[in-house]
């Protein structure tokens, strides 16, 4: 397992491998001898070399803190290989369902809301699409894949990007799971 762990603005690359009860650990490329036992839920008995630590994991509301002795840390742990980790999106809620009144193709859009993609009065030109803005169907007669007319497809749920729904895929049904927060919801 590989993690990027950020503490106090600094990010560390951590590689952990657990084989049975034993761990192997590399921190920023440096091999570290680690022995860890979960003493009880949220309490780790950790040995690094011959130094011993009691480390607590505390969840307060939406935050997770790690306590080493009486020192508290607020780490952010990311999997560097995940799409979410690469994007700037911060939506942690998971999939949300978008119900469309008709089947259509869901595509990603560029970072900014470009003219013609969205007819919502506040979402024009080079403005970033705002969460809550209504996404409307593109009315581009030059592209045979697009339906004519405007229709509301949902509201912009991300800080950037949007989806537009096209009528060319009849096998997509009304309920379309949202796969990324860069899509309009």
């Amino acid at each position, binding site marked *: *397992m590989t993690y990027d762990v950020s503490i106090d603005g600094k990010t560390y690359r951590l590689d952990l491998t657990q084989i049975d009860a034993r761990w192997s650990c590399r921190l920023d490329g440096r091999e570290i001898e680690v022995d860890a036992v979960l003493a009880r*839920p949220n309490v780790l008995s950790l040995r690094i070399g011959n130094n011993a630590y*009691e480390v607590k994991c505390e969840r307060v509301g939406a935050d997770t803190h790690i306590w080493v002795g009486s020192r508290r840390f607020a780490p952010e742990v990311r999997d560097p290989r995940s799409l979410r980790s690469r994007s700037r999106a911060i939506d942690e809620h998971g999939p949300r369902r978008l119900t469309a009144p008709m089947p259509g193709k869901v595509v990603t859009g560029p970072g900014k809301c470009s003219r013609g993609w969205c007819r919502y009065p506040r979402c024009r030109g080079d403005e970033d699409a705002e969460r809550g803005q209504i996404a409307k169907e593109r009315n581009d007669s030059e592209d045979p894949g697009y339906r004519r007319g405007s229709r509301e497809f949902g509201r912009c749920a991300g800080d950037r990007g949007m989806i537009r729904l096209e009528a060319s895929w009849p096998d997509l049904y009304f309920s379309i799971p949202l796969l990324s927060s860069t899509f309009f919801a």
Partner: protein
Amino acid sequence: MFKKILIANRGEIAVRVIRACHEMGIAAVTVYSDVDRAALHVRKSDEAYPIGPALASESYLNIEKILDVAKRSGADAIHPGYGFLSENAKFARACADAGVKFIGPTAAAMDAMGSKTRARQAMEEVGVPTVPGTSRGLDSIEQAMEVAERIGYPVMLKAAAGGGGKGMRLVHAPADLKSALDGARSEAERAFGDGEVYIEKAIINPRHIEIQVLADEHSNTVYLGERECSLQRRHQKVVEEAPSPAVDSEMRRKMGEVAVRVAQAAGYTNAGTVEFLVDQQKNFYFLEMNTRLQVEHPVTELVTGLDLVHLQIRIANGEPLPITQKDVTIRGHAIECRIYAEDPDNNYFPSPGKITLLLLPSGPGIRRDSGMYEGWTVPMDYDPLLAKLIGYGTDREMAISRLNRALNEYFVGGIKTNISLFRRILNHPDFHAAKIDTGFLDRMLKQQKDPSANPQADAEATEVAVIAAGMFTALGSAAAGPGDRTTTDGALPKSAIESNWKKAARREALR
């Protein structure tokens, strides 16, 4: 001896009294409000009765309900703990009328001492030194102005029926007096049902030293030494110790004898505390008498070897004191920290919520009086005192080092507490040197926290935190506690161990 005692209180003091009852072979009856059904004191007792909603006036302050439970349970006596009805003369009288023994002073003694102004009047009559001020409540702002001019600013406005810092205002200048008086009156009315406020000269950086007294119903009264209670935040005690590092044996004797005189003047029985302010010249002035068992009684118990709650019960049972003044000796040193559910990074705002992890200190010289447990949700409806942690040693330095060690072992996860404050206090050079007064804590809190003197230790701790954070993530749900997965509003925490995206993808893959 009593067969059954009803404890008209909650939290750690209720558990304390339950333990004393069980040690003496007495059944313990408790009461609880709706939000306290899962409280520790309920399941530690022998019988428990619901007494209504969370609002104290409809539960723990409701005399009728408490006495109804006493009647239904067949309790012989009621222990009021501290706070709530413990200094309520009406309640003491109602107990007597109901044929239930109130474990504490008589209503008459409470009336004499419970009002701070009446207490001052009584003390003046028997020649006990008092802080310059009024012995009667202020009638008007004009009177307050006149007295303040006469005794000199700064002055302290205080609630006559008050305690615990409520209804108190320090006033430095005449321009602030009116608003302070209005504020003190309304706070006193809300807290005690009595808006009477009096005025005293504010002694600059005094020490707050109190004497524990014990009196039986056969006219025997003894003092059990002093407690140093100068470490206060907004007039609420935070750290107490016994004996006071500022008091020698001669001063102890003088203060103790004055305290006994105070108790006798009031016709006092059972446990009580006489509070003094001590100026920098070691002159002491009567402040008030608290007609109840105090929160900080454990430090006296540890240095005297006496169990005050046992003695309270025996006195209420009509027994004479088993000790004379000559038998009282002070040995060793004890220091107590009051652990509150407060957020030190948010001006000590109360921090209710679920305790998700609790690691408890123990070892030599450590005592814990606690009302909390892992998995309990601290309610927001009452004083957020969770527990008291006391360190005892042969001398002050040992008590400090043991308490420091215990604080490092103490962990309360899921809510914020003031434990970090005590580490700062106990490691402060002025605290070690006993250079403390009632302004110490405010001065210390205004100072910046010292930057870490050990960057190497910081780097090491950070490295450990990084590794541990990765391990907790890797271990996933196996590392979490059973009730740990949700926030108080039911939403999954931001750094949920198992990603919602992963779960959704797994579900999709299984279709």
